[in-house]
């Protein structure tokens, strides 16, 4: 099932399927490892905020919800 990355809860992992972000951000994200086929894990989420941090390629990167919403993933169990 295709989900936005923002819907993955803390501790959950997902495989990236596609980036629907605007070109500039999509480029920046793929530099950081947010690329199709890559596995990411949500490690931190602000309960009321709109920011969450993801473990990707061994580094932890925080993204705002409007950006992570545009990253389409498939949940990994």
């Amino acid at each position, binding site marked *: 099932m295709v989900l936005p990355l923002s819907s993955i809860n803390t501790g959950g992992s997902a495989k990236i399927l596609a980036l629907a972000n605007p070109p500039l951000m999509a480029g920046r994200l793929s530099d950081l490892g947010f690329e199709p086929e890559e596995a990411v894990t949500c490690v931190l989420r602000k309960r009321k905020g709109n920011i969450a941090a993801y473990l990707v390629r061994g580094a932890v990167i*925080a993204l705002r919800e409007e950006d992570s919403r545009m990253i389409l993933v498939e949940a990994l169990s």
Partner: protein
Amino acid sequence: MTRRVALMGNPNVGKSTIFNGLTRLRQHTGNWAGVTVSCAVGQFSYGGQDFSAVDLPGIYSFDTRSAEEELTKDFILNEDYDFLLVVCDATCLERGLYLLSQAAGLLEHREEAGPMPQAVLCVNLCDEAEKKGIRIDFKALERSLGIPVTPCCGRTAKGLLTLKKLLASLAASCPCACASCSLGSPYRRLPSAFSPKDLAAQAVTYTKEHYRKREERLDRILTGPFTGTAVMVLLLLGIFWLTITGANYPSSMLWDLFFSLEPRLAEAALSIGLPQWFIDMAVFGVYRVVAWIVSVMLPPMAIFFPLFTLLEDLGYLPRAAFNMDGAFHKCSACGKQCLTMAMGLGCNAAGVVGCRIIDSPRERLIAILTNSLMPCNGRFPLLLTMIALLGAGGGVWAGLPMENPVLSSLLTALVLTLFILAAILATLGASFLLSRTLLKGVPSSFTLELPPYRRPQPGKVIVRSIFDRTLFVLGRAVAVAAPAGLVIWLLANLTVGGESLLMHIAGFLDPLGTLMGLDGIILMAFILGFPANEIVLPIILMAYLQSGVLAPMDDKTAILSLLSANGWTVKTAVCMAIFSLFHWPCSTTCLTIKKETGSLKWTAVSILLPTGIGVLLCILVNLVF
């Protein structure tokens, strides 16, 4: 001949630490992405070979999306250098390998442009990887890539010697440093084509499944909905309390020392036959202002900077930015602004330069324009005196004399923390206003890297923060204070129509000053303090005493009684504290803003914005209370 080495890699992999280890220079380092925003050059030699190293800003890729990336790419492509040292983090090797493969791709097209550099992969932070149970097969890496691969730990200098040896032997194997000769070198110049993902999977093994467990637990506390804010406020409070308590004693010791030297200096000058007016000017003008500033500023800075550097090295700052991002998001600003504000707490000029870490031009400009709303270290002594005055005045009225020193310094720290929180609020408010008026726009996307926590090294922290930051800032203050002391002395001693120039200016400014709950002398002191905020208080005292020379003050109580005698009330102290938080940036910061924005218009805005806030708030306080 000198061989040039370029250090390149992802942000926060420790390039500057390796650079410092190689060259014995002291570039500013810290545990967050974007500490280095411009190139640094240093020399070292090993085994009879001379090297010149260039520390480039960290980049995520060569698809340049920011000024530093542009700078690094430009250097890699167009400069002449012999070694490309690709530094990567052992705990996320894959990302480093991606950058290496990009660099190799770029350099292949360079072939005609100049001699091909020798690429070397330096895997840094090996100690950290080991602790996390991450094992790296360096032999396999070297076999697949065909270029030299060396493990390293820049913090402990372990592996730096191996790196130097390697560079020296490579340099010796190719005596001419020409483009094509690979005389005796078993290595390729550039790595053969490889898949970063496969190579990382092949060379890295994770022996601990939950190697990030401790980090995640700490993250949850530091960014929790309640605990995150609590930790941030407590850290601020703790740092200020330690600074205030710790600085008291050395401050008064320095004070006594400097002022016991003063008459002897005057005597000595007289005995070698210098004229009296010159002695007055040099000793009671220049020397006294400098002595004042050193004894008031040095001890708090020598405590504040190391404490702050500890936090920086630990990796706390990005977590604070993570916490604060919601607020910045609502103001259409960048969450990384929190990092530049933290730098502004040390020095606004440094904070303004630090704004380069923000990619989007609109958000960067917001961060630059609002940076001086955070009080820099030079303004702390002024704020502390005002708080002491508030405490003394308020305490007397409430019948609560603060005799317990621990309690009183804790209270001072608490009030200072409140002032800083007010400054943070003002920054958010100003950012909000700017993004609704002058700098309209929606917040652009941003990414924030949360680095692993690293145990700070207290010895290095102290050396670095004292020598590099404290003495640097103090040196600048003194350099400004000495001529300022002279100007003040002249203004106070040159008379027109029976009144000193100082008094004429103060009289002219008095109406506005009174409206703001201050007076003409205070306003004039702030104007004369443009080169350095540290000299504002000395000027006020000197003007009140009308002695033409700066009064040596035995202790804080003497200052307080002098101020009360000149009509100061709690309201004056409050307005003064507000205005010292919010007024124009110092001259160095203004010049830096001009340089960073390249525009006089934005420099003017950066002056008018905090000044406007300060004037309005002061008038408001004056009229309401």
